[in-house]
């Protein structure tokens, strides 16, 4: 068990370094992807024996997404986790040879049903009210 924890910590550290140095991702993106990958590892060891080597495949990936949906995660969260774990899958394949080559994401037929968060524009009148007093305020700058 302790071996598993050490292994998880090390692999996540390597993953974060890979995201940062090789891919040039922002720090916060790295942190988020690592947390998504950790959730996948938790899921993996929850459904597999502790002695099994960590891996990921299309079936496992789809089951993970299904498991997130069963646990009532919002669709936007499911999408974000899926992208994080997909990146982790690529990392495992390229660096560690611990997983089969990932299919391109578009071919996996995974659909996310999230509602678009549309920005509701303000009305024309409100917009002109908003900028109405600007000229006077800008003239007062000295």
């Amino acid at each position, binding site marked *: 068990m302790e071996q598993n924890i050490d292994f998880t910590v090390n692999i996540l550290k390597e993953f974060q370094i890979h995201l940062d140095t090789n891919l040039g991702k922002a720090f916060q993106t790295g942190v988020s992807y690592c947390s998504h990958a950790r959730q996948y590892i938790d899921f993996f060891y929850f459904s597999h024996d502790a002695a099994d080597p960590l891996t990921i495949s299309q079936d496992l990936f789809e089951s993970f997404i299904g498991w997130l949906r069963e646990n009532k995660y919002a669709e936007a969260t499911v999408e974000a986790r899926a992208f994080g774990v997909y990146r982790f899958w690529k990392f495992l394949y390229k660096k560690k040879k611990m997983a089969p080559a990932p299919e391109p994401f578009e071919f996996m037929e995974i659909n996310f049903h999230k509602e678009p968060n549309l920005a509701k524009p303000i009305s024309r009148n409100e917009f002109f009210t*908003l900028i109405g007093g600007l000229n006077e305020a*800008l003239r007062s700058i000295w």
Partner: protein
Amino acid sequence: MRHYEAYGEFVALREITISTFVRSGESKLHEVVKLRRNEMNLQESSSTFRNDHVFTERWVHDFLLLRDTLFPASPWLFPSKTGEFCDASRVPYRISSLFCQAGIQNVPCAPESLSPDQWLKLTTEVRFYFQRQRYQVALAVAFLSCDALRPGELASLKKSNIDIDQFWICLPRPKKGRPEYMPLPAFLIEPLSRYISHLKLDDRLFINLQGTPWTRKDIYRVVKAHAAELGINDVVPRRVRATVGRLLRKNGATLDQTREFLRHVELRTTELHYAPDNIEERQQIFQEYHPLSSKNISRKVS
């Protein structure tokens, strides 16, 4: 501007104006604080005191405008928070405090004992420090509504990102990752050049009173507060950006031109979030051709 924010600027301008009166030799400090509002007239570019002495200093003019907005009912020229005349014995202390807040230490506090250099600092650096918050709100709203900038992009602007001669601003950290350029509207050139003349080359355009740079949350806060003051609720930068996109489309810009202006990588983002099909077109089709439209019903009846 909200009352508590404007009050800080008011106090600074009040102390500077009181000092102007004292230094002009018109009256002593304890007489100045008891002057009444009707003894001073506000004109376009100057202020006349007791009909014979003219003050052309801009800060006196700004002070009177702000005073009349915040304390319209007070009979005193220099009211305190309660509307009564302010305490003369506290004026030197407050002047010293203004210098301290603006980051200038070890300055004598009596108005008449300030050296010409210190007086210049008080009326330029210190004054600008207290008026800056109001200027920033106007500039932020202007940038958002003209160039439809994202709040994060606006918050990260520095003086060095603005090229007044070439009429553009360079966005150092846009969403795409590489620097992008946006046009500078003509009406912003003059106020912006006056504003940035107070800043050093590497200074941020927008900071708070503690000197910390604004974040995107600050942009959200000021835009929302500014709009609420004008009676418009729930206005956030993203909605302003969407409105600009929609207005561009309404005025004849193609979807691709709108995408270019809003700096989206994918056309679908523009189409889905910022400039969807105009409902007006559908309304027009409905009115023109649908059998249940009021126009067609009246045609049938006649």
